[in-house]
């Protein structure tokens, strides 16, 4: 059972994540968008969206630091455990709080503002639920595990992190997760579920982060010839060409 939860499930989910994105990009470029609802409502969005997104960017880099970088590296740099702890918990709580506050504002807005709610798909609702669970479990782990030390001290850098890096290196340590506190287990599994859902939700827009804008020339010229159509002169009817009611 340990192998199933901490080896099979992660590989299946990550495979779906990668293959799903390739499939989605090839077959649904037109549907690959942020699906912004700013046109409907922008007072709440102006507050909630930057809070959530900048919070999530912080959370992402926090995970890179915590999961991606082995403890031995920071030790070699002479960073003490206490210093790391302060940075990780301080930054984590700050970023996490911003993300949660933003998410609460955005979800309330989505439910309470009529036009935004009617533009919400079933997939959006599923995604919001899973995302909310993942974030709440993550916050719980930070507060309960690292600050309050409920259920004893647990160093995820010697447990969860080693397991996570092992998935990508083929160096499997399912036993480390089996020993981890329940909060970390649940957070890990919920995150895997989110990765599997990712390519089929609006979350794909994360991979469109337009960093190329910083280097490209302002005006883009393109030849008529360069149009990427399957057959010259014709194309499928586009999504969105249904008639106004």
């Amino acid at each position, binding site marked *: 059972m340990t192998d199933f939860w901490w080896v099979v499930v992660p590989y299946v989910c990550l495979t779906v994540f990668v293959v799903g994105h390739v499939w989605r990009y090839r077959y649904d*470029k*037109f549907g*690959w*968008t*942020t*699906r*912004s*609802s*700013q*046109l*409907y*409502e*922008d007072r709440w*969005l*102006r507050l909630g*969206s*930057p809070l*959530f*997104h*900048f919070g999530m960017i912080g959370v992402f880099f926090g995970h890179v630091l915590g999961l991606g970088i082995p403890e031995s590296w920071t030790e070699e740099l002479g960073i003490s455990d206490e210093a790391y702890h302060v940075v990780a918990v301080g930054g984590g709580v700050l970023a996490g709080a911003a993300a949660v506050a933003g998410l609460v504002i955005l979800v309330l807005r989505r439910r309470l503002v*009529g*036009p935004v709610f*009617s*533009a919400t798909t079933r997939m959006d609702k599923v995604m919001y639920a899973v995302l909310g669970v993942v974030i709440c479990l993550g916050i719980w782990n930070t507060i309960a595990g690292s600050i309050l030390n409920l259920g004893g001290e647990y160093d995820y850098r010697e447990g969860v992190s080693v397991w996570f890096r092992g998935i990508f290196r083929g160096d499997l340590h399912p036993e480390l997760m089996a020993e981890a506190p329940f909060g970390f287990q649940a957070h890990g599994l919920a995150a895997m579920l989110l990765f599997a859902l990712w390519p089929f939700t609006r979350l794909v*827009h994360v991979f*469109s982060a*337009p*960093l*190329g*804008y*910083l280097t*490209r020339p*302002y*005006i*883009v*010229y*393109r*030849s*008529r*010839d360069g*149009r*990427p*159509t*399957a*057959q*010259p*002169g*014709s*194309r*499928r*009817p*586009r*999504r*969105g*060409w*249904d*008639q*106004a*009611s």
Partner: protein
Amino acid sequence: MRVMAQMAMVMNLDKCIGCHTCSVTCKQTWTNRAGTEYVWFNNVETRPGQGYPRRYEDQERWRGGWTLTKRGRLTLRGGGRLKKLATIFSNPLLPSIDDYYEPWTYDYATLTNAPAQEHTPVARPRSLISGRTMKVSWSANWDDNLGGSVATWAGDPVLAKVSGEVKRSFEDAFMFYLPRICEHCLNPSCAASCPSGAIYKREEDGIVLVDQDRCRGWRMCVSGCPYKKVYFNHRTGKAEKCTFCFPRIEVGLPTVCSETCVGRLRYLGLVLYDADRVLDAASTPDEKDLYAAQRSVLLDPHDPEVIRAATRDGIPHDWIEAAQRSPIHALISTFEVALPLHPEYRTMPMVWYIPPLSPVVDVVRDTGSDAEDSDNLFAAIEALRIPIEYLAELFTAGDVSLVDGVLRKLAAMRSYMRDINLGREPNAAIPAAVGMSEEAMYDMYRLLALAKYDERYVIPKAHVEQAHALEELATECSLDYDGGPGMGGSGPFGEGSGAQAVPIAVENFAVLQARQTSDDVQSMGSGRVNLLNWDGKGAPPGLFPPRPDGQAPGEER
């Protein structure tokens, strides 16, 4: 010098009667879909008025277009690349649906479904955004014909720039219509604002398009365009804009708005320009010099030097010839009567306007004087400072003398041609007063007043050898491959399934015209019978049920 060709438009505002036919036909062609209810690629504004979306010309608020830095470098007014990325999660410069209007429909079903009752049932307006019943309080041309303008015209950003005492007498003296489409700028700030690089300018004809597969819905183009002519489709989450009807232009047909224009006021044609000088011209320090700067970017297609450079840069010979016959070149550079809309936005717009003389003529006529006399008209142009200042704020960044000059030419033409039409001796002094020869004046009259179809629209067809992907031309053969949709096949899951290819335009003009004007009866091809396209020649198989004697249907004994 790097020569590029640009399809451009000029509108003769004197002829616009504000009938909105262009807007309606454009909407039926391009934006009659869910998500684009509020989108008007073409709209007609009454001036003075707020325009659509409301107060879009207030760049202090919307920060569209370009501006100069303190060191004189051209930069996006809404902020550069880093600022764009920093505000990407919530664009602070995006107009909300209230700045446009909340689109609606009526619940017509109640008119027939309502139970017997004392009062006549009414179809109430329902919002297409929220689905609820709503009170209609604004739309794309709510202040049409100055309707309700006493309440709203104080919001006209252009009027606010015209000196204060003018405003009172304004309503009686002055009104005109301003049809607007995308400007297909030489220096498009929408394209420059797009983080994804999805908006591009076509190398062949300069049409600015949004690649729907690359657009990610960041909405920066809507803010970047000072004319607010890029719209956000709230269903698909993608930006959409005027396409200059490129499938029609590619086969030599005018745009839908031009073709259906009742007043025949639109002109279409090519101009050649020097792409290397666009940035310099857009960076001209004084706003009032921008008109001249943009003129200087446009090249003379008769100049042998230009022709040589154009050939070198791959512009086909028939395109150069079309540029020489172009009515746009004539109106902008030869007669110098067309002016760009808001050159101070520094985007180098390519839809130009001939300012209206009619308000001046009306005033002269109302005073009982001869409204065709050039001296009277010249005097009125001098006297009517308010409308002239308003036109100058629209077309020349406030330089009154340029508008003055154009209106004098139009007045001179009116006066000079009256003598000819009445069989009197033409007065050569009138054209001379505005610096034109008699021949040039007559040519201008022919182009502006007679406005023959072939002279209004000089549209060279796109070249098949450059563009094997031509939408209109290629449809016929691309469908006809063996087993393809053109052979009557359909996908594995029934009709319409699978990778079925359909032409982008429902009516294929070139094909339809060829069939309608041919003498012989042609087969409709196999497959579904489409009575919409049936021209009455012959009977396509499947139109009638098979006859009992086994003879093919539609065949005479």
